[in-house]
């Protein structure tokens, strides 16, 4: 027999729906908490995805960069001959040069916007634009061609493919559009070829920003990393996972952005817990004579605790359902913005678990109240 078939469940369910005002307050509290947690954690997740997207999409197992590089966008130039040193290292199958740096994009209609120029050669297979929605990847080799994300058309002062801009006095022409390639720095990525990127960034020919290393199948990435470190003592060599972690750590924690987002989620959890605890306590107090009657009839403390926890659980499920409906609507609404909120099955599951824990913790005060019930009160007239 399932729990839903028991009178304990029926009592919890009826008591919950009998106190309509308290139920509404409880659900609003949980809903507020779920939405706040979902938005904050969704933004955290979305931001995290943005931060690591270029690292994840690059065809590299190990990254070589300037010593002390904190994140993908802010790397300093390194000597291009490091690529040769990398290729000479056992276990390395490919070493692809890439440049990436901030620079000003001058809008055709006046004004400028900071952008991040990323350049690799298509035939090398380093980091090409992905999610292309207009134009073809081969078009990136055309004269002055660049690919940008359509989310940033307004920031770049253009309307689409064929429009032009200027970077460091060099004309660039939009040859293709991507969708969903956003930058945590809010500076749009501008994808182009390696040499054109160097020209746009006025970078010397013997300089690059990264060497993207592909490790031979079956070889431990950390072993190759160590070998590269031995060969390239003046550079920084990180595995993909290490570079991801470093970039995330910098943007999310060194800048405080992530702490603010997680802090908001924690605040939502606390506010939700307090509201649910108050309403559950009030409901328990309202039904205290009933609980005393149950005790007088011989119910165990556990039976009464289950009634309260079932009420808390039902509230959690309902509040979560309403809260997630709103959170999904917000996720959809932010889909095409510069800072999209992410929602994954994992986050949805975590939020459900957090909601259940929140309501269970909220039930402690109410459980404490009924634990102290003196069943003698049933004889009070």
């Amino acid at each position: 027999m399932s729990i839903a078939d028991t009178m304990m469940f029926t009592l919890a369910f009826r008591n919950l729906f009998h106190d309509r005002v308290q139920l509404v307050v409880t659900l609003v509290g949980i809903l507020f908490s779920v939405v706040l947690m979902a938005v904050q954690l969704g933004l955290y997740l979305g931001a995290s995805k943005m931060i690591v997207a270029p690292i994840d999409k690059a065809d590299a197992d190990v990254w070589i960069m300037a010593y002390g590089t904190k994140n993908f966008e802010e790397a300093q130039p390194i000597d291009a001959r490091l690529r040769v040193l990398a290729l000479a290292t056992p276990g390395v199958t490919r070493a692809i040069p890439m440049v990436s740096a901030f620079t000003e994009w001058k809008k055709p209609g006046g004004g400028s916007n900071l952008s991040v120029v990323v350049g690799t050669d298509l035939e090398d297979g380093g980091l090409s634009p992905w999610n292309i929605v207009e134009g073809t990847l081969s078009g990136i080799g055309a004269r002055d061609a660049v690919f940008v994300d359509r989310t940033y058309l307004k920031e770049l002062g253009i309307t689409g493919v064929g429009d032009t801009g200027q970077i460091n006095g060099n004309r660039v022409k939009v040859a293709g559009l991507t969708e969903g390639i956003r930058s945590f720095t809010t500076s749009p990525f501008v994808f182009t070829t390696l040499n054109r990127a160097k020209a746009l960034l006025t970078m010397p020919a013997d300089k690059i920003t990264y060497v993207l290393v592909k490790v031979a199948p079956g070889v431990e990435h950390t072993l190759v990393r160590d070998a590269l470190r031995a060969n390239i003592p003046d550079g920084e060599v990180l595995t993909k996972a290490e570079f991801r972690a470093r970039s995330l750590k910098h943007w999310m924690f060194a800048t405080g952005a992530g702490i603010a987002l997680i802090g908001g989620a924690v605040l939502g959890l606390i506010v939700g817990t307090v509201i649910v605890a108050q309403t559950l306590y009030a409901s328990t107090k309202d039904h205290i004579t009933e609980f005393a009657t149950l005790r007088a009839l011989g119910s165990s403390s556990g039976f009464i605790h289950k009634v309260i926890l079932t009420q808390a659980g039902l509230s959690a499920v309902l509040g979560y359902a309403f809260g997630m409906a709103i959170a999904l609507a917000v996720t959809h609404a932010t889909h095409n913005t510069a800072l999209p909120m992410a929602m994954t099955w994992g986050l949805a599951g975590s939020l459900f678990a957090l909601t259940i824990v929140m309501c269970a913790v909220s039930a402690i005060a109410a459980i404490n109240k009924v634990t102290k019930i003196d069943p003698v009160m049933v004889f009070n007239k």
Partner: protein
Amino acid sequence: MSATVVIDKPGQAPALERGPPVLVASGIVKELGRGAALVKAVKGVSLELYPGELTLLMGPSGSGKTTLLSILGCILAPTSGKLAIAGQATEGLGPEALAELRRRHVGFIFQGYNLFPTLNAEENVKLALDVRGTKGPDQVMKAQRALHQVGLAHRMRAFPGTLSGGEKQRVAVARAIASQPSLILADEPTAALDSENGQQVMALLANIAHASTHAVLAVTHDPRTIPYADRILRIEDGLIVGEDRPPADGDNTVRKLSPGSHVRDKKRKQ
């Protein structure tokens, strides 16, 4: 203690057989408050309750009736004295063990009914059975049988808010008897009822006592309840000051006496 006791009631021909006492209390004392405010609510009460009998505990307000009922129902711990229900001593038992004892052996009927307003009549009875561990079809069958027994088969789906006072108390009686406890304790069961409903409830309690192995103890100060009693214990100032056993009329169903007609019980142990 003998397994079976046969009693004679004065003026009664047939002797009634009764089993061993369901409840044995000896030297029960209950002190309430502390220091200068200390009050002895119960001052050394000893009594036994037998199956098949409706016993009234009568006394004026403040005489200790309800305190004694709370102690006999294992809800309130005595300051001193011994109590055993269905052969199980309560001394040294913790709250959970006492709850289990109540669950297994005691049914309560309260003056204020104490029904659950969000549950209908059948569900109220089923909840009490759920507490006692009776689940599934057995729970439904026992709940419906108890409601049939109290004449509320037609009101099973009615919620307490739509029931009359008498009906509510009959639901409370059904709740108390559904799991067939050996002891039923009723606190002023007729106090909130009019004369007709009060008589119906008392007749019900008397029938329940006589038709089964229940021992029923009702605390009351309502003289209208006397005609239904097999035995009347009088309590004053925390002490049992008298015990009356009204004569039976030979009828096996409900024995009625005129209020105030109290005959001293004579017991003869076999």
